[in-house]
């Protein structure tokens, strides 16, 4: 017969060859490889101070016939240490979730059981499909002063351990970070950056449960952050950026009244607007323009001088005409 046998790391293990007598002639194998007879005491296999590498399939064969008399799968592992448990509400006031993990692996299967008690009421924590070490609870009551008590028990074949976390409804509220953070330069403003973001999509009702925000920014070349706390709105204009320097910007969120700040958002980078260098018209450019005009004369465009954006009022229009006439005169000379 074949079965699984769990043993603790460092234990001494004795395996009997099924119903065979102690003095029967047998051969043991581990994962198909013969085990040296020095590990045998009669027909018993003795493994001292087992370690993780000794996990595997052990088989016992009758000496002469090589009939399989016993088989077991040895799993070497450890009893569970106290699990690490955390609970958080990132979708207040809908509910909260608890997640857990073991601080060190056991190397064998573990089973987790979680209980949630609120006053005298036992609540059901529904296990998430993914990740597996998480469950969620819907709030039945809001604004309660009665604490929640969550107990997580982990059990495996070698032992059991548990931990309890007791908390108030408000203290575990922690939104997800803001989303879609965008930072843009502001045209014609060398010291400004416009930052905007959105409420985390997991926060169900920002109108009734508004978030406030914390923005931090610094130029890449410096280590020190500037901070701004914003009690409403999802945008902010930085007005003291260093001209021409690339900035890194992040935003965090918190419920207006309760709980703790979210983690920082994904960082975005932006550089304030800088003035582009003006183009100078060179002699070569004028020569090239006029020679191209000899076959079918067209006054060349004078966009740089007569840029619509720069033109204000009739005075500037007169300048445009004058420039056009001058160039036309050049064109006539070279026909």
């Amino acid at each position, binding site marked *: 017969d074949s079965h699984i046998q769990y043993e603790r790391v460092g234990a001494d293990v004795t395996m009997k060859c099924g119903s065979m007598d102690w003095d029967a002639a047998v051969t043991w194998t581990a994962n198909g490889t013969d085990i040296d007879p020095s590990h045998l005491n009669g027909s018993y296999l003795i493994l001292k101070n087992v370690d993780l590498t000794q996990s595997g399939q052990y088989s016992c064969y009758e000496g002469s016939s090589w009939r399989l008399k016993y088989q077991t799968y040895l799993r070497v592992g450890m009893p569970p240490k106290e699990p690490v448990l955390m609970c958080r509400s990132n979708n207040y*006031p809908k509910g909260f979730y608890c997640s857990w993990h073991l601080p060190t692996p056991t190397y064998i299967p573990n089973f987790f059981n979680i209980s949630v008690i609120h006053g005298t009421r036992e609540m059901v924590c529904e296990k998430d499909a993914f990740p597996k070490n998480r469950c969620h609870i819907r709030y*039945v*009551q*809001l*604004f*309660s*002063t*009665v*604490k929640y008590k969550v107990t997580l028990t982990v059990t495996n074949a070698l032992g059991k351990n548990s931990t309890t976390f007791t908390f108030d409804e*408000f203290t575990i509220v922690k939104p997800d970070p803001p989303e879609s953070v965008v930072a843009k330069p502001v045209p014609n403003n060398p010291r400004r950056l416009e930052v905007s973001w959105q409420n985390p999509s997991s926060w169900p009702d920002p*109108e*009734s*449960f*508004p978030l406030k925000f914390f923005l931090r920014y610094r130029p890449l070349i410096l280590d020190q952050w500037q901070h701004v706390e914003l009690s409403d709105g999802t945008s902010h204009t930085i007005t003291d950026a260093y001209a021409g320097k690339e900035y890194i910007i992040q935003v965090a969120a918190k419920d*207006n*009244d*309760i709980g703790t700040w979210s983690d920082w958002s994904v960082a975005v980078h932006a550089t304030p607007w800088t003035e582009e260098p003006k183009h100078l018209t060179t002699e070569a450019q004028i020569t090239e323009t006029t020679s191209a005009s000899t076959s079918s004369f067209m006054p060349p465009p004078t966009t740089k001088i007569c840029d619509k954006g720069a033109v204000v009022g009739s005075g500037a229009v007169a300048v445009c005409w004058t420039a056009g006439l001058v160039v036309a005169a050049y064109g006539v000379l070279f026909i």
Partner: protein
Amino acid sequence: MAAADGLPATLRRRDLCSRGIRLAGKMRSDVVDLLDTYVEWQGLDPSASVAAVEGVPVAAVEHWDEQTGTQRLLENLAAYRAFRALLTQMLEEQREQLDEADTALGRALAAVLLQVSAFAYHLEELLRLECRGPPSEEVAGPSPTAHLSLFERKLRGLGVLRELAQWAVRSARDLRQLAKPSPGSSLPPGPAESP
């Protein structure tokens, strides 16, 4: 329909809700500070558990999101009227206990009492705007505490302040719900605003 000050009712309601939300926020902040002061003055452990105290309105509520606007206002008003009486009682006890009229704790209690009274009045205004008018105040005051030991009275006070802090958070949320142009409100759809 215009309210007493000539503003359209919807605008007046929104204005009262906004001011109420700010008042609730300030009140909560002051109650949290008062809790620290209270615990220190009374020599209590800040993490001490306090069982439900008789006569203290409990902020905890089920199906909060399903409440109508009127329910929210009535429950809030009943709570703050009760807190007004409870804080008055605490203030008197504190003065008797310390045989002193003016202490930091006394001043802090008095300041919060003033805010609670103001908030209760604010809620009454909102109810008047609903043309329902606030219910008359109950005659019976808070439960007497003469039979309680000094320690029990201190714990009771802790319970009162903790529950008040929860109410301040709940009230801000309730008023935000009320300020929404919501289908959940019991307020009838407003008539066209007067020019």
